[in-house]
């Protein structure tokens, strides 16, 4: 079986500190993989490497047969990788609708985008997306006026708009209410299968609700992989979380 995404012996160091040290990870097509681990384990850095924000100092990242490690960020995005950031990153001065429109990057060249959408062909699509993330009422408002939870939803909506094959989510439910978190879990269940997802999360309830396979990182390496029960019982994982009350309380 060939993996959709394959991280092979990836390393990266910041000023001599090895944030990622010989990381291996393989994700199947259509899988929803949760990535957990104690603070500083290198989860966000792992996502940064996949989407090109950080260049690995060693190892290879292969996605659908394409080597990503030497590509520019926009080339990686064009290869089918989407990323949601830990700090919600949207275009604050643009309206919600415009944010979704920018994310719907079917055409990426400058000349190809020198066109007017007077008939507003993308409008219906944008409205559907806004409905999906519950922002219909806010379509014409600048994103700066959204609440934190709504901003998170907007960025998730933008990733759905982008329609990337591989979606990387960094703490998508941070700052959300319990109800919002539950809605997010439902949305992710719908995305699973059509997209390959990697989700970094701290909320174990959320992880158990959405994840098939959980990968645990520690000190820049892969510590364990398996179902929630397997991972919780894993002695190395228990040791890694020692003093923090186990992974359910991380």
């Amino acid at each position, binding site marked *: 079986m060939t993996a959709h995404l394959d991280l092979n012996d990836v390393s990266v160091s910041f000023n001599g500190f090895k944030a990622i040290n010989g990381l291996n990870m393989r994700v199947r097509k259509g899988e929803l993989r949760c990535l957990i681990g104690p603070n500083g384990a290198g989860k966000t850095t792992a996502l940064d490497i996949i989407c090109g924000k950080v260049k690995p100092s060693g190892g290879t990242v292969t996605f659908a047969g394409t080597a990503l490690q030497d590509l520019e*960020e*926009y080339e990686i995005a064009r290869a089918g990788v989407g990323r949601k950031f830990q700090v919600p990153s949207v*275009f604050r001065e*643009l309206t919600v609708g415009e944010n979704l*429109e*920018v994310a719907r990057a079917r055409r990426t060249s400058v000349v190809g*985008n020198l*066109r*007017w959408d007077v008939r507003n062909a993308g409008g219906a699509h944008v409205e559907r997306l806004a409905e999906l993330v519950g922002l219909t009422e806010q379509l014409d408002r600048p994103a700066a006026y959204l609440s934190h939870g709504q901003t998170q939803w907007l960025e998730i909506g933008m990733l759905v708009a982008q329609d990337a094959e591989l979606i990387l989510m960094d703490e998508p439910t941070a700052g959300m209410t319990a109800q919002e978190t539950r809605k997010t879990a439902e949305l992710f269940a719908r995305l699973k299968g059509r997209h390959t997802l990697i989700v970094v999360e701290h909320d174990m309830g959320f992880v158990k609700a959405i994840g098939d396979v959980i990968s645990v990182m520690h000190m820049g390496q892969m510590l364990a992989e398996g179902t929630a029960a397997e991972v919780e019982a894993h002695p190395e994982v228990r040791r890694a979380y020692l003093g923090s009350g186990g992974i359910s309380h991380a």
Partner: protein
Amino acid sequence: MSLNGSTSNGLQRLTAQLAPLLIVCALVFALPVLLNNDFLLNKVARYLVLGILTISLGLSWGFGGILNLGQAMSFGLGSYAMAMALKLKTIPVHTGASGLPDFMVWNNVQALPWFWVPFRSLPFAIAAGMIVPALVAAALGWFMFRGRVTGVYVSIITLATMVVINLVIIDQQSYTGGFNGITDLAQLEIFGVAFDAYGRATYYLVAGCMMLSLLVAFAFTKSRAGLIVQAIRDHESRVRYFGYDVALYQIFVFALSAAIAGLAGMLYTVVMEFASPTFLGVQLSLSVVVWCAVGGRQSLVGSFLGAVLVAGMQGALSESAAFLETWTLVMGALFVLVVLFLPKGLAGLAQVVWRWIVQRRQAAGGVAQGVGQTEGST
């Protein structure tokens, strides 16, 4: 507000945004009917040209987030392109068909330099007046934006580049006229129409170019590419992760802005009847930033009006006896006040006032006619 009315909503919004632009253009075109004074008309034409220059800065600064402190560089290059062509037109009259421009004769230049030769053709000069600034900007932008230079460093680099080109022009007196610039020009003549600096034809030429610049800039900001450029202004790195090559978009808007500034420069030569190194000087370049900020950099019409109003005021103040010495202080105070209290400039103020009026009227209408009056409220 209706959910499925996005098509008509989009068109409605577009018309609403186009309206102030067309009103301003109509006023500009109507002015000569009211103002029967060729001297004043020439003065207004000058302010209109500066307005075009400020539109170009609004495009790159307000929409692209690129604060180009060297916007006058493109302006100056355009101005020199026109001046070179018009200077060469004087040769047969002044010195015979094989002669040289007067300042070259004074500087003992033996033959017309190679880069002057193509300017014998006016169409070439007009094209060059826009293409050369655009290419220079694209080349500079290629280095800056590929290297991910942002913010204040862009401002420093653009300002420094302009100063370098300014110094080169002053230094190469035998080829550029040096500190004196290029003076004593022929009149621009297109399709048999002569553009006397104090004639109505020139005013309408400037007004037409101003309308064209506004419409081109407006069309760009309303295109998808224009939307992406604004997204880059808000959050540059985020745009990359959607697959857009950010540097190409920045280079494009930077070059488009330079081309419009080049057009303004050409017109300035026609209106002023000379080209001078001060046209790409620091003082003008920084003034453009003030005009743009006062008018509202995120509004094209605002930028334009900011330039016309403030430059007009500058002209009036510097000529009045009371403010002869202190008009720069007045301008400085104005700039500080706008930055402090009107971050979106006069255009932002107009928006707030307009929204307030609409809301007032709706509140009144809502009482009288009940609901159903909210259509088109946003």
